[in-house]
């Protein structure tokens, strides 16, 4: 009997029968998250309903030396929740209670499976919302947001998940339940945990900051004949000292996909559209709107639309927010890339992506959070043609090289996961990676919490005498070595 089988037999002491999945047909439905390029059928899936259950499962994993991976709604785009065939997949989708709403202190305490949008929906009537808004906000879980430090269109002005989470209860890789708070003196462990992609433990309770719904919101859609005009407008708006809530850009191909999917009715003939959202007090928004309109005209916008109602605003955003999945309408398969460049380097990088399209003979749709230089090139390919996937992968990697060359980063908000771990050495030196590994080992000495993610080669932590029983499975299989 394998170690995993022995562990699975004991799961019945912790969880109901219908919260442990071992049937192979069922297990297969958990074989990937939002990134379908990487697949692995989990050894066993558990659907716990409390922190105590998660802690008990993790303690079993610790005891048997079995790796575990946490998963929320399975919408991640870097394969951060890719299961382990030799491990346990801990799914938090049944932990979706909003435990507390504390309006006077602008806090809400939620379980990790609560969706991002559900928080906003719970407090909207009271004039509040939860600011980070990934495009998948109606389904992505807050636990996953914490793991990936998710952003969204509005993080230009309001910041990422890390700026809106003030406390976390988590299960450590040893199965202890601990609490971290932004008021803790000493090292910012909360900051270290957010964005750690499941490698430091599993969040089981999250305290988020609620933001006041802005008094006024104006959403402007500006259409340009080409992407250059849009780029100039972005630089000019930021250069004028305006910080919009969001500035988003889509190119012709992305617009085509969105039109096909949601009939968003963007201006005909647009080579690029810019969505600019301004929010705040009425007077400020009116003032900024006048400036934005003028700048867009000056930089060559041929049509400017202003949303007159909440429905019209939603229609403008619908095109943008459904863009990734909408690309499924114009291409059998695609890779969602996520890179960052300094805003000023946007035109050069876009020109570089154009050259790559020609070199590789592959189409790339561009959708990006233009305000903070976060690009989402969508590399289109046909997965039924042998070799095209690898070809697209290569093109996609070259886009990241471009980002690094221009002083940017290999990920803005989707995380490193399994997908980009191999690009980490292009950004960081061996010493950098070793230093990160030391942090990881401080939390997870046995390397059982989401192993194989973030770091290019699976490494094990330094000498921890007497804890590990026998040789680690990764060492045994030749996938890893001690350092």
């Amino acid at each position, binding site marked *: 009997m394998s170690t995993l089988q022995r562990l699975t037999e004991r799961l019945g002491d912790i969880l109901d029968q219908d919260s442990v999945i071992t049937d192979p047909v069922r297990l297969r*439905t958990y074989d990937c998250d*939002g990134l379908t390029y990487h697949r692995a059928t989990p050894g066993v899936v558990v*659907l716990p309903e409390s922190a105590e259950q998660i802690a008990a499962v993790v303690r079993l994993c610790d005891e048997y030396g079995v790796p575990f991976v946490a998963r929320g709604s399975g*919408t991640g785009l870097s394969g951060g929740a890719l299961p382990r065939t030799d491990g346990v997949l801990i*799914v938090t989708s049944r932990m979706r209670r909003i435990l507390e709403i504390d309006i006077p202190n602008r806090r809400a305490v939620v379980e990790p499976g609560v969706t991002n949008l559900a928080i906003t929906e719970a407090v909207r009537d009271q004039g509040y919302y939860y600011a980070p808004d990934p495009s*998948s906000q109606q389904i992505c879980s807050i636990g996953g947001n914490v793991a990936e430090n998710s952003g969204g269109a509005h993080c230009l002005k309001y910041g990422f998940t890390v700026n809106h989470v003030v406390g976390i209860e988590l299960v450590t890789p040893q199965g202890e339940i601990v609490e971290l708070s932004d008021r803790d003196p000493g090292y910012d462990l909360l900051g270290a945990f957010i964005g750690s992609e499941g490698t430091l433990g599993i969040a089981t309770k999250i305290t988020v900051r609620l933001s006041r719904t802005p008094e006024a919101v104006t959403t402007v859609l500006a259409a340009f004949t080409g992407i250059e005009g849009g780029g100039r407008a972005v630089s000019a708006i930021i250069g004028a000292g305006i910080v919009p809530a969001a500035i988003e850009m889509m190119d012709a191909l992305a617009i085509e996909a969105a039109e096909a999917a949601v009939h968003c009715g963007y201006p005909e003939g647009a080579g690029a559209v810019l969505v600019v959202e301004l929010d705040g007090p009425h007077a400020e928004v009116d003032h900024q709107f006048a400036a934005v309109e003028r700048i867009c005209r000056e930089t060559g916008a041929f049509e400017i639309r202003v949303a007159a109602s909440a429905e019209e605003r939603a229609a403008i955003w619908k095109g943008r927010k459904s863009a990734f999945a909408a690309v*499924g309408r114009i291409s059998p398969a695609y890779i969602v890339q996520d890179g960052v460049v300094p805003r000023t380097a946007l035109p050069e990088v876009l020109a570089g992506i154009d050259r790559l399209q020609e070199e590789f003979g592959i189409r790339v749709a561009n959708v990006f959070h233009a305000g903070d230089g976060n690009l989402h090139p969508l590399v289109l390919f046909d997965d039924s043609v042998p070799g095209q996937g690898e070809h697209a992968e290569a093109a996609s990697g070259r886009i990241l090289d471009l980002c690094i060359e221009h002083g940017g980063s290999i990920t803005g908000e989707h995380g490193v996961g399994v997908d980009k771990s191999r690009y980490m050495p292009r950004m960081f030196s061996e010493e950098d990676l070793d230093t990160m590994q030391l942090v990881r080992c401080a939390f997870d000495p046995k390397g059982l919490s989401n192993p194989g993610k973030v770091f290019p080669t699976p490494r094990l932590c330094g000498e921890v005498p007497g804890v590990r029983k026998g040789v680690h499975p990764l060492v045994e299989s030749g996938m890893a070595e001690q350092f």
Partner: protein
Amino acid sequence: MDPELIKDCVHCGFCLPTCPTYVLWGEEMDSPRGRIQLMDQHVHGTPVTDEMAGHLDACLGCMACVTACPSGVRYDRLIEQTRAVVEREHTRTPDERAVRAMVFALFPYRRRLRAMRLPMAMSKRLRPLLERVNPTLGAMAELAPPVPGHVRLPPVVRARRRRRATVGLLTGCVQAEFFPQVNAATVRVLALEGCDVVIPPRQGCCGALSLHSGREAEAKRFAKRTIATFERAGVDTVVVNAAGCGSSMKDYAEVLKDDPGWSARAEALRFLDLAEFLVELGTVAERHPLPISVAYHDACHLAHAQGVRAQPRELLRGIPELDLREIAESAICCGSAGTYNLFQPQAARELGDRKAERVLATHADLLVSANPGCTMQIAAAIRRAGKGEIRVAHTAEVLDASLRGLSPQALGWVSEDAR
């Protein structure tokens, strides 16, 4: 299961929050994305296991995921194809088989339904016993509406003003037998709006129940019969007031696609929901005030399968003094879903309770929907909750009351137990 349709799914997960079973159980294999994955496994050679069949059977077919999908996955087509495969390849337990045989031998046949009136009236008292014998029988007894008198509609009703259209009317099976007042109201509204209404007297089942349960051959037979009936009636537009029927009739051409002659005949007929038809025609009849608060429930086969959401609301808002209220989570199914509440009573009950809670929160006087299945399901759930009573009515009945200047008290029925 068409592999090309399966490939359209990019696994983004946008369907999950709209899927009733995912909302209930929070597990991947009971979500549209997960079920498509199961279909993919089958296409790649995995046989239909008991587990697989269970998750596919648990799908309500509400099509909320079709509305939510940004990639345009035709889950509606996929699940229809899949149900047929499950019917062919999966052996159900003897109990399941018996219950399904009974339902499919009963519901599509009006005369057999009529024969059920007396047993139905008695079944309320026998419910505890029926529940013990089989959960489906218990559910049937719980859902049964009060049995109305029989209404016989004339074969043709002439327009009550300058004629603007001639339409056929599908009277339906359950609608005709248990909600004849809805058909009567529909005919009056159409006539008052200037339509000649042709009601073929010997029309049968439209095939919706069979189609949505994977009984392909039976569905095709019913579809052809219905097409022929309306061809003989000499109409090119057929108005339907039951959402489930309307959605499958709109699919006739697809259902009969292997039979070019028949699919062309299906294409030649226009099937429209009553609200859709009235808004397209433009209303002219005078509306009298109806001071009543109404919670409008989106039937899945109207909102998701036919995309008809705005029209019924527009018609209701057009009635002076009517206060229209929205139900929270309107996109989530009530659990009725054709035969679902008979075959999956437990899940249907949980969804019904969830819906009842949100309907009651509107504090409306009247619950309005365009599908008899939904109305029966929600009424039963509200009865179960024991939290007061809400009267229920079909959109047609509300319009009819306004056109005829009836008092709001005349509107809607309440459950048998409450009377």
